[in-house]
């Protein structure tokens, strides 16, 4: 069979093509990745920036192997890998989680900052559970898409999401952002439970 070359054979041209395509992707999609990363990092913008940078490095290295129609999904998976790898890192293990957040001077407790409350509640979820909730309820991915991104079964996604939602509701109800979870009708996204 005759071999058809549809890619530049020159090494320099190949790199230029990769760089141009990667740059175009970053320009158009970095904002969305950053937004997702902020949720995955529970509102920590510096950690989110780290996650995005790590994910984009992985994406650039793998660029020739990634199908053009799957770049978004691949980048998302790189982001999740970065999140999970970060939690496994020695730096992350040295961090200590506390059940109660420290008192913050000057915090206006009369008007609870909604965004901070949501991120604080997300931060109490384990990383994979948090990722399942974010993918399902922020990005509106299906159960199967979420399972593929997290490399787990659909059943795991459902159980993780359901438990994550329960914990979120309980935390947010305390901040009066949601009604009492005992009274508010749990309306999980389609496919949860």
């Amino acid at each position: 069979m005759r071999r058809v070359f549809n890619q530049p054979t020159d090494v320099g041209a190949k790199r230029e093509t990769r760089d141009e395509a990667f740059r175009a992707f970053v320009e158009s999609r970095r904002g969305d990745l950053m937004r997702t990363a902020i949720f995955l990092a529970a509102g920590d913008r510096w950690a989110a920036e780290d996650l995005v940078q790590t994910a984009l490095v992985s994406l650039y290295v793998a660029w020739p192997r990634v199908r053009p129609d799957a770049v978004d999904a691949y980048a998302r998976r790189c982001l999740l890998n970065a999140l999970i790898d970060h939690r496994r890192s020695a730096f992350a293990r040295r961090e200590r989680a506390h059940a109660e957040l420290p008192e913050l001077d000057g915090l206006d407790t009369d008007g609870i900052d909604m965004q901070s409350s949501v991120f604080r509640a997300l931060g109490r979820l384990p990383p994979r559970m948090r990722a399942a909730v974010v993918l399902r309820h922020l990005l509106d991915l299906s159960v199967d898409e979420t399972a593929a991104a997290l490399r787990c079964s659909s059943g795991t996604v459902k159980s993780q999401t359901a438990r994550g939602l329960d914990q979120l509701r309980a935390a947010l109800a305390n901040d009066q952002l949601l009604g009492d979870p005992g009274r508010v009708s749990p309306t999980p996204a389609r496919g949860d439970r």
Partner: protein
Amino acid sequence: MSDINALLKSVAPGAEPPRPEVVDGDLARGRAALVAARRRGRVRRGALGAVSLVVVAAVAVLLIHPTHGGRAAPGAARQSGSGAERVAGTGGGGAGGAGTHARIQLVDYTGAQLAGFTVDQVPAGWQLSTSTSYALLITPDGSTNNDPADFEGKLAVLTSSTDQHGLGPGARVTVDGQPGRVHTSGGVLILSYNAPNGFGIDIQAPSTLGWGAAQIVAFAEGVHVTANAVHSHG
């Protein structure tokens, strides 16, 4: 849409387009990681290549020196299970023979046979030189010494003298199921055995072949004495 969906989306920050320097930074980090990944790949391949070389060298050493615990050379594979392995196991009884010469492997012989004998294999790069009714001489390619009475530096197959009794000294081997002995004399490796058709056979291998008992037995198992051969007298 659930209550959580709405809440998450309501607090989500806007997706701002990145500044050019941020994009440049992503590109630079990607390039650096790619260079590092390729370097690691080269190192891994290099290490793998080195390991492969060591393995190949080790196998080659074992093939060249089967009496040091390895297996016989490919050319000697036919004699697997024969007496040659017992020679190897007992140290060869002084019949190691390899000396300082590189071992020359046996290869299948497809050329014309000479009267009195046929051979299945010859040392690589060697040829049938001459034969008489009691001797077959094999010499290196290019050798012009075709004197049938001169065995110096030649691989010689000789029918045993009629006045020779027994197999002589040396390590016990088995050639095609027949008993034999291997010993060295004056740097020449000598195999004595009884061919199935009743001939006593002596094979002399010069040290330049670098052979041991396994190789000379393997060669012997490809030697066939025809009806033209006669017992030598000496």
